[in-house]
């Protein structure tokens, strides 16, 4: 009994059967090949009902071919039969060639099987990384990214209001020191003009200017350049130059 398991499909079996005829593949008897195949398939089905469709389709086609080869001479069926026989032979030949080509390839000295290349190739490339690959687009996008990130990070702070500071007042008072007329003068006289003060809400600015000027006056009094007096609570603050005292004493 011929087993089908060892064959790679119907054509493979047919090729093996054709080779069994021990003639040139171009001269095989197609009819006996067909009969051999059909018998083998019938046997296989007797043993095992299920058979891959490939085998059955081939069997059906070969049955048709057999009928064309056996029918009494009719020019048309005869021609059909001959064509189909030729086709079958050509395919068997091609499959035989494939097998021969595979054997030829297998017989080559195969790399990694029969011959080996250099196991430790030397890498004689040297990589020069001294160059620099930069362009203006990268630079500008780097700048924009950095700045945008910084802006995103910065929390919102309302603009701080600037006030007439002690330092401002000190500077102003020192400048005006020489111009202070003799006698007690009101501190109010030494406040900055509206235009000189920083912008902002006028009431706040005025109070800040007064406070700054008072502190500046106290500072100058501490260093002995001015004298300050206030005669009653919330009364006007008066100032006079210290050297005026000396001047008056000298005059007495």
């Amino acid at each position, binding site marked *: 009994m011929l087993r089908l398991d060892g064959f*790679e*499909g119907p054509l493979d079996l047919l090729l093996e059967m054709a080779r069994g005829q021990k003639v040139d*593949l171009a001269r095989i008897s197609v009819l006996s090949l067909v009969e051999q195949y059909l018998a083998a398939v019938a046997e296989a089905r007797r043993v095992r009902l299920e058979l891959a469709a490939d085998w059955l389709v081939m069997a059906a086609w070969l049955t048709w071919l057999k009928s064309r080869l056996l029918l009494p001479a009719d020019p048309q069926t005869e021609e059909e039969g001959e064509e189909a026989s030729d086709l079958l*032979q050509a395919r068997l030949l091609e499959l035989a060639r494939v097998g021969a080509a595979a054997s030829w390839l297998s017989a*080559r*000295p195969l*790399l990694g*099987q029969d011959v*080996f*290349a250099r196991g430790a190739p030397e890498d004689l490339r040297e990589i020069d990384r001294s160059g620099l690959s930069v362009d203006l687009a990268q630079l500008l996008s780097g700048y924009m990214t950095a700045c945008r990130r910084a802006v995103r990070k910065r929390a919102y702070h309302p603009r701080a209001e600037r006030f007439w500071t002690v330092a401002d007042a000190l500077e102003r008072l020192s400048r005006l020191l020489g111009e202070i007329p003799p006698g007690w003068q009101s501190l109010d006289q030494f406040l900055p003009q509206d235009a000189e003060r920083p912008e902002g809400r006028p009431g706040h600015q005025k109070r800040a200017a007064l406070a700054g000027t008072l502190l500046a006056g106290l500072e100058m009094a501490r260093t002995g350049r001015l004298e300050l007096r206030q005669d009653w609570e919330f009364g006007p603050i008066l100032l006079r130059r210290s050297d005026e005292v000396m001047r008056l004493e000298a005059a007495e």
Partner: protein
Amino acid sequence: MTGVVAAEEQAREAAALVCRLVEAAVFASSEPVSEQVLVELLLGQKLLGPDAGPLDAVSAVRDALASLAQACGDRGIRLVEVAGGWQFRTAPDLAPMLTKVLQRPRRLSRVAMETLAIVAYHQPCTRTDIETIRGVSLSQQTLDALLESGLIVPKGRKEVPGRPTLWGTSQAFLKHFGLRDLRELPRREELLVEVPVLDDGTANDPRSVEALPADALPG
């Protein structure tokens, strides 16, 4: 007279240096080295004197390769021409002994080898073409094994419904089988010469498979 002798001496020295350089260049590489690369190397290094042109370099390279191949004659390694270049390889007769110290990859299965043979001869071809010729469907496993080995590569798609991938053999195929190029494969007509022919020997149907209507047969 002395000038002639000196010039000859100089030419001999240059040839020896070229020979050593070509040997080293081919030896250092794990891949076949093309003549083109060697020619450029000689020209770049100006080893042939200032007047030498590309043609001089080509013939110097060929001389060097020939003399190297000859020098390998009875040694453990051979200089072979493969996949469009030159490569040193171990002598085939040493393989059984070498495999004791070297690892060997798995051989291809018979099905994979036949499939590869079909791709080699019918490239570019589709999976259906392969199945038609073998008369049986091709398992994904076989195709995967061939793809993984890098022996076949996709070569575009066939402009038919479904646009199936067309397969062809790769450079690795040539290297693996030690072929200079695809023309080194036996011609189709030569393949069946070995098939036993009992009668007169007018064998070998020259019809090509291309002439076969693929769908005329079940498969």
